[in-house]
């Protein structure tokens, strides 16, 4: 029996970074050389894990309270909304972050940067959005760190974001940056986003309304996921 499916809009060409970006050296042997094959959306793609993956614990949204002591660094709040292109909030969807500590070091065996680990900071958090698509994390501001991409290369301070939405097609991995960072102009990953407007949307805004008086500076970072086409298709 045929049924109708309600497909997702396809992103405009040039919205996402291309995968072949010579300035970002690791793309050289990893980007597909063949063009992507365009396929219709089916029930397999328009469905997906509804509430993300795994249970979310009470302290998972506060990366400063996951250990006995407080982590070193500047305490910050990152808050925002997950919306679709039609400005509809995406409720009860999983938002995950991970990041380096204040010294620019990840709690990961593969990170060999000569900067101290922080026994009070693991650097990973997860929350579900509320009915209005809102999320909120408390964390510390991550440090910038050097990487081997080119001579004297430094990644700007960033927080990795993983967002599910309600479909396999809304899945997004991205990175949030901080306003006014002089390293942004030099970063081949940030600058792989083709248009200036797209790059701007990856930079959080300092926001006094998000700021907790006497406790933590606040940054606003809204995330927009793919929305639906107006016309259903015979699925």
């Amino acid at each position, binding site marked *: 029996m045929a049924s109708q499916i309600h497909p997702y809009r396809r992103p405009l060409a040039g919205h*996402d970074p291309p995968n072949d970006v010579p300035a970002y050296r690791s793309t050289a*042997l*990893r980007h597909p050389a063949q063009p992507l*094959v365009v396929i219709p959306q089916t029930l397999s793609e328009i469905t997906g*894990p509804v509430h993300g993956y795994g249970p979310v614990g009470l302290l998972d949204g506060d990366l400063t309270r996951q250990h006995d002591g407080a982590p070193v660094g500047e305490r910050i709040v990152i808050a925002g909304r997950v919306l679709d292109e039609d400005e509809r909030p995406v409720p009860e969807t999983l938002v995950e972050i*991970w990041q380096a500590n204040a010294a620019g070091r*990840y709690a990961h065996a593969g990170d060999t940067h000569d900067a101290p680990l922080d026994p009070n900071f693991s650097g990973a958090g997860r929350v579900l959005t509320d009915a209005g698509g809102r999320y909120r994390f408390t964390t510390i501001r991550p440090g910038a760190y050097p990487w081997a991409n080119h001579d004297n290369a430094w990644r700007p301070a960033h927080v990795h974001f993983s967002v599910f939405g309600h479909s396999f097609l809304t*899945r997004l991995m*991205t990175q949030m940056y901080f306003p006014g960072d002089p390293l942004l102009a030099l970063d081949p990953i940030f600058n792989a986003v083709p248009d200036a407007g797209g790059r701007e*949307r990856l930079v959080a805004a300092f926001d006094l309304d998000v700021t907790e008086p006497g406790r933590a500076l606040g940054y606003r970072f809204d995330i927009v996921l793919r929305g639906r086409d107006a016309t259903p298709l015979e699925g």
Partner: protein
Amino acid sequence: MLPLTPAQTVGPFFAVLVPERGRLALVRDATPGERIVLEGVVRDGIGQPVPDALLEIWQANAAGRCNHPEDPRTNGRDPAFDGFGRVHTDARGRFQIETIKPGSVPGPRGRPQAPHLTVGLFARGLLTRLVTRIYFEDEPWNALDPILAHVAPDRRPTLVAAHRGNGKYGHAIVLQGRRETVFFDV
């Protein structure tokens, strides 16, 4: 209309968030269906293993139902099967997925699709997610699959896991070069 948030690479350190490495079990004891084990590897453009890839698997249950409110078929749902999991490759670029053979999911104009896993792949060096599928060599419906029909015949084998008998399958995801896996724009 609001402009979309662009993608960025998952980078090398996502294990801070996703510790599961090498093996993924999508099934519980109570999950009905034909048990299968898929052994795979991810390789780059010179055949080197990719030890830092993150794979996400989404699939229907044994009756072909997707665990999602937009699957209109209310019968055949399976509370013991979520259909989603993620795993990152081990030091040799390998992954092993213990799951059940999915049933058939309807495709365009109600045409049945051959059983398949929907796969999202992230890695350092990939600025966006790559989307592919994994079909099964021993499924006669592959020849009629409406999505495989969009793929040039000589590249279709890159989407089909080899049947090794006893419910075991082997599959390589090749990011670039000879026998490059087909990735989709969907």
